[in-house]
């Protein structure tokens, strides 16, 4: 699996920490000539640790967003290859297009065979273009739909990994009926008779995320976000301003913890301190454990029960008087 080769790139809110780390490094170099600095370094280390703890325990919603969008964050392919190094990739919608933003796979995790789909962001520029920055075209959703039907036919559970800014807003996307592609996935995924587990690993961007999110169990990584519209879109429409993104993040209640409180998701998966990009292995292991546990439970249900469980879950969502 692709491990983090470089040191994690610090985010804006992590700058104080990065500066402190730099100072410590500089001090360490002088240590051999000036042993009396030993005490200073120790004090600095304590300062660093307590700053780190307080920084990560008081994250604002927009900080979670920054971590969720971190360029070194593990992506769908990273998880697939950690969990099952021999995973088989499945391409194409069978109708003319293979959308790089949606990855299809056969996976075997802890002895459970499953069909998996996931949105994929790119790492290098070329890769990003191939994946369209994680924004599927209608053909990507139709690829996923084909695989949902395959899973249903062979009684295989379905895993969906969500990390997308949203469905692609483009000319051909509209011409090829993006709305219909999403709507059909919502309807068909509601009706499959095999277990469906979805996990938001990064950004859960609106309908483009939900199109692979109609699941019996929905998990979110600790720093991932899930929202009805991008915070940028929300800020520009409601505040008519581009610098109210932080306010929009806060108002929409888009962090994993808040969405758990709203009863929409089932579980928040903890990440290594600072975010999944600090330690791919631990992040992947935590998520795997939760997926396996949820699937094991769901596999005990009959096909009718598992469909009813999912439809009943979504039937309850809403708040009115």
């Amino acid at each position, binding site marked *: 699996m692709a491990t983090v080769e470089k040191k994690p790139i610090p985010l804006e809110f992590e700058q104080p920490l990065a500066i402190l780390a730099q100072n410590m490094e500089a001090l360490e170099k002088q240590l051999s000539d000036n042993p009396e600095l030993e005490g200073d370094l120790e004090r600095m280390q304590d300062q660093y640790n307590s700053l780190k703890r307080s920084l990560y325990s008081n994250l604002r919603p927009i900080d979670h967003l920054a971590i969720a969008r971190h360029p070194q964050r593990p992506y769908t392919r990273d998880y697939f290859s950690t969990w099952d190094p021999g995973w088989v990739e499945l391409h194409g919608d069978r109708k003319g297009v293979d959308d790089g933003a949606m990855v299809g796979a056969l996976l075997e995790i802890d002895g459970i065979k499953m069909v998996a789909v996931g949105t994929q962001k790119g790492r290098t520029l070329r890769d990003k273009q191939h994946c369209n920055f994680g924004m599927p075209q209608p053909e990507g959703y139709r690829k996923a739909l084909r695989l949902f039907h395959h899973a249903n036919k062979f009684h295989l559970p379905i895993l969906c990994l969500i990390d997308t800014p949203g469905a692609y*807003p483009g*000319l051909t996307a509209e011409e090829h009926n993006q*709305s219909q592609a999403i709507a*059909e996935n*919502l309807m068909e995924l509601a009706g499959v008779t095999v277990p469906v587990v979805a996990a938001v690993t990064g950004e859960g961007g609106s*309908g483009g995320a939900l199109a692979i999110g109609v699941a019996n169990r929905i998990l979110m990584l600790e720093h991932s976000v899930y929202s009805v*519209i991008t915070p940028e*879109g929300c800020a520009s429409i409601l505040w008519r301003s581009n610098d109210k993104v932080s306010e929009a993040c806060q108002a929409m209640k888009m962090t994993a913890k808040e969405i758990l409180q709203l009863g929409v998701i089932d579980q928040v998966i903890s990440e290594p301190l600072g975010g999944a990009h600090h330690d791919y292995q631990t992040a992947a292991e935590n998520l795997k454990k939760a997926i396996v546990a949820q699937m094991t439970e769901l596999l005990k249900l009959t096909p009718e029960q598992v469909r009813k469980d999912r*439809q009943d879950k979504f039937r309850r969502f*809403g708040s009115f008087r």
Partner: protein
Amino acid sequence: MEELEEMDLKDWFASRQKRKEIQEVIKQPLTTDEYCALWKQCFQCRELLYTRDLRTNLDVCPKCDYHFRVGALDRIEQLADEGSFDELDADMRSSDPLTFFDTEAYVKRQDEATRKSGLREAVLTGLCRIDGHEAALGCMDFGHFGGSMGSVVGEKVTRLTEAALERNSPLIVVSSSGGARMQEGILSLMQMAKTSSALKSFADSGNLYISILTEPTFGGVTASFAMLGDFIIAEPGARIGFAGRRVIEQTIRQKLPADFQTAEYLLKHGHVDMVVSRNKLKETLARLIAFHKPAPKVAAEKKVSGEPSAAGRT
């Protein structure tokens, strides 16, 4: 969630008044409100139309066939047989699950929306007859909160679908919406899945769902129940899509065709079954419903009961 406000007539008159032309035209000037109540300007051909005439023509411009937006109440009047509409969940109102506040509190925006539209929410649902056929009918109203879908719209459409399924009657939903309602956050998003899931059960039951797309239908509504009809009908000139025109232009940095995302464009690209003028809409619905009515049970029963007495059996 694009802003699709029509040019406000009041603004139009205000600008005319500024140019002091109106005083010359009208010797005893009416107030702007009075004037607006009597006259409406066609957004397409700019003709000034007498409001009463426009109404008898189902809010379609007699000169150029421009289809004005129609509110939910008028729409029901146009489609349901007179006096047959029996409203469901009339009292259901939004709550404020996120205690949402942008530049104003969501609860305050809700009250404003109700004052402006006279409606509690952006959809009216009920059971009715259409040319004598029983049907479950939902009509969205863009005039209420931009027709946006929050918990109430999702719940009412879901309950309407369930009511139609229970009665084995056709389901008809007239959509008009800017998309999901941001002020209810993730719960609004989940309404897309909730309505689609209910429609899955409805589809499995073998009953007919007709979706009517009207000016404008976008975002989470298009990407859920509005696109899931057995038949999808669009009104002439209606703008329909997933993403708004401006968002797409900003993303792809190129000019879009003039007719992009219009009903006619959708027809050309195979997204809708037909584009139907408003004055033909009711008869089209009646015809489609009649066409899909199961054959009368009596005939089927006769066949079965006739079997045992078949000649030649010993």
